[in-house]
């Protein structure tokens, strides 16, 4: 390691509260910085997701924790112990690989027993722990099978049993659901989350699927270009994305750019096209008057435009330019006067009137659901 930066947090940190602590992690491949000075910590027993598009550095971080990638700089502590220089086999981390990496020449039992054999445990202890691990993932009936004789979901459960049986301090999941079809994926996600909470095992999940991150996580770190853009609980990342990138990546949010038209002690007003929006608090400091906003489609209400709502009046008035059905919800695309298009989602109830294409509507924007973005 060269010129290791000073750890970001103060010395003498309490170790009990956090299972994983990463400080100033840097990894470059040639001129490309895959991980660019990343620091974070994960409380014991929680599940943190590294979420981002491919190439954002999330997998590199996971592999650095497992010991397969040697960081250029930075420190990794598990349970308060510095493991940065340890080889993979001496780390108390268990990884669930993307394609499970089950040993094809070993039965399920032999696969699950592998980690315990490497730890030279007595034969009968291995047998009882393997049995318990297989029961945990409900694979007892498949113990004697080879991996190729299992379905995708069973393979994943076998790989999970193999990882859990060694009672690791950290469970690392590398895009674990990517190979499963939609229905099975959702079932496995819920199953995994329940198991993780029951065992209280600290878990790091890497995924590019924001839905998966929302379902599974206690904490989400949204990553872009080797850096963490936002680290927060799922609801907060969803409701209040910190940056334009997060808003875009979390999906389906309407992004709007407006200008600051007025400010006073209790709030400020942003002009967007012909409409104005009053928001509480202070406007973001030090910008050129341009303000980026994100608003969720389901946070926008629709009213039928009255005769007074013609193109000259202020407000968010427009016409339905597209409509589609999402089962329990309706999705509209509204083209505002001035050309801006916004997506609006409505819960569909018995009385909900389905609006026609071209119908003129007025939008209701709740200021509390509009998030001012930085960057």
């Amino acid at each position, binding site marked *: 390691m060269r010129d290791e930066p000073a750890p970001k947090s103060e010395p003498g940190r309490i170790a009990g509260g956090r299972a994983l602590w990463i400080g100033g992690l840097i990894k470059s491949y040639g001129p490309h910085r895959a991980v660019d000075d990343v620091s974070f910590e994960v409380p014991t027993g929680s599940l943190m997701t590294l979420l981002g598009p491919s190439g954002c550095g999330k997998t590199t971080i996971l592999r650095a924790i497992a010991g397969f990638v040697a960081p250029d700089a930075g420190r990794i502590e598990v349970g308060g112990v510095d493991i940065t220089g340890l080889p*993979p086999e001496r780390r108390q981390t268990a*990884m669930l690989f993307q*394609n499970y990496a089950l*040993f094809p020449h070993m039965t399920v039992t032999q696969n699950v027993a592998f980690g315990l054999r*490497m730890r030279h445990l007595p034969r009968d202890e291995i047998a009882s722990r393997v049995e318990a691990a297989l029961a945990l993932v409900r694979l007892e009936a498949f113990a004697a099978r080879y991996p190729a*004789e299992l379905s995708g979901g069973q393979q994943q459960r076998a790989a999970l049993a193999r990882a859990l049986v060694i009672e690791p301090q950290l469970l690392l999941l590398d895009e674990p659901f990517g190979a499963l079809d939609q229905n099975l994926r959702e079932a496995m996600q819920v199953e995994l989350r329940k198991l993780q909470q029951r065992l209280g095992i600290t878990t790091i999940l890497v995924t590019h699927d924001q839905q998966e991150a929302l379902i599974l996580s206690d904490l989400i770190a949204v990553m872009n270009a080797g850096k963490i853009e936002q680290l927060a609980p799922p609801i907060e990342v969803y409701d209040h994305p910190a940056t334009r990138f997060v808003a875009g990546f979390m999906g389906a949010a309407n992004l709007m750019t407006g200008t600051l038209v007025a400010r006073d002690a209790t709030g400020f007003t942003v002009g967007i096209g012909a409409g104005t929006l009053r928001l509480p608090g202070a406007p973001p400091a030090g910008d050129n008057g341009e303000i980026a906003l994100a608003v969720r489609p389901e946070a926008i209400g629709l009213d039928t435009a009255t005769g007074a709502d013609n193109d000259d009046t202020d407000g968010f008035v427009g016409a339905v330019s597209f409509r589609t059905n999402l089962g329990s919800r309706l999705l509209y695309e509204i083209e505002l006067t001035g050309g801006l298009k916004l997506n609006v989602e409505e819960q569909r109830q018995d009385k909900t009137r389905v609006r026609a294409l071209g119908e003129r509507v007025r939008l209701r924007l709740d200021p509390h659901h509009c998030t001012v973005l930085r960057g």
Partner: protein
Amino acid sequence: MTIAGYPARGSSDGRWLALPALAVLGLFFTAFAVFAIVSLLHNVSGTASIVGPPSLDNYRAVVGLKLNRDITLDTLWLALQLTGLCILIGYPLAYLMARTPSRTLRNLILFALIVTFLSGGVTRAYAWLIILGNTGLVNTLLKTAGLTPLPLVHNRTGVIISLVHFLLPFFTLTLFGGLKTVPASLEEAARNLGATRLRSFVAVTLPLSVPALIAASTLTYAVALSSFLFPDLLGGGRNPMAANLIYQKILDAFDIPAAAAMAVLFLLIALACVGVLGQLERLVQRRFPTTGRRA
């Protein structure tokens, strides 16, 4: 059911496609048949003419001579030793090629192997004579260092060195192909579960590479059995292998039927050996029900 526009499976249209392959196979088989027939005739002493009636006399004579039996056994044994050496040198090489993250290193090894493949045998044999000869590169260096020069050519040592060099690309490239199909993530999984680098190799990669190892060894063994040039040039005529013996029978004794009998016998022995190895490969494949399937 036949889909409109497509001939049903097994219709005569498909059979024509097999014709070129059958023609080639037929040609080889004809050559072999001619060989077998000639081996049953006998040579008119002092002439090149071959006459009947057919008999097994040639076979009796070939098998009856102790020298023939010794050289055949010695050839089988030497080919085994050569295959063993190729495994020792070639496995690490193929493994390095399959696993190194450095593209340059992989291409360098590949280049060296393929150059060996493509350069002519005679050229290489003389190159080895220059390197290993009594006044060659190695012995000059040894003498300069004040050490006793080693007899490296016109003996078994020279034959083995040059043949390993000749056989290594066959072995390494075949094994490399097999090793590449063993995912590196399996080794990572093993290490993640607490296995050292060596244990993860022994417990995971090595057993999974056994089918490829047997395939590469079979090929190497078969090629080694048919060695002719290197034992001739670097063995100094004192280390003949089976092919050299057959060659001598033709050129020195002009006894083509006897040579044909030798060739047929040796071919059958070689086929038996390769067949045993092939059976072993099938056995191993069955032992790993997963090979070739998604895991």
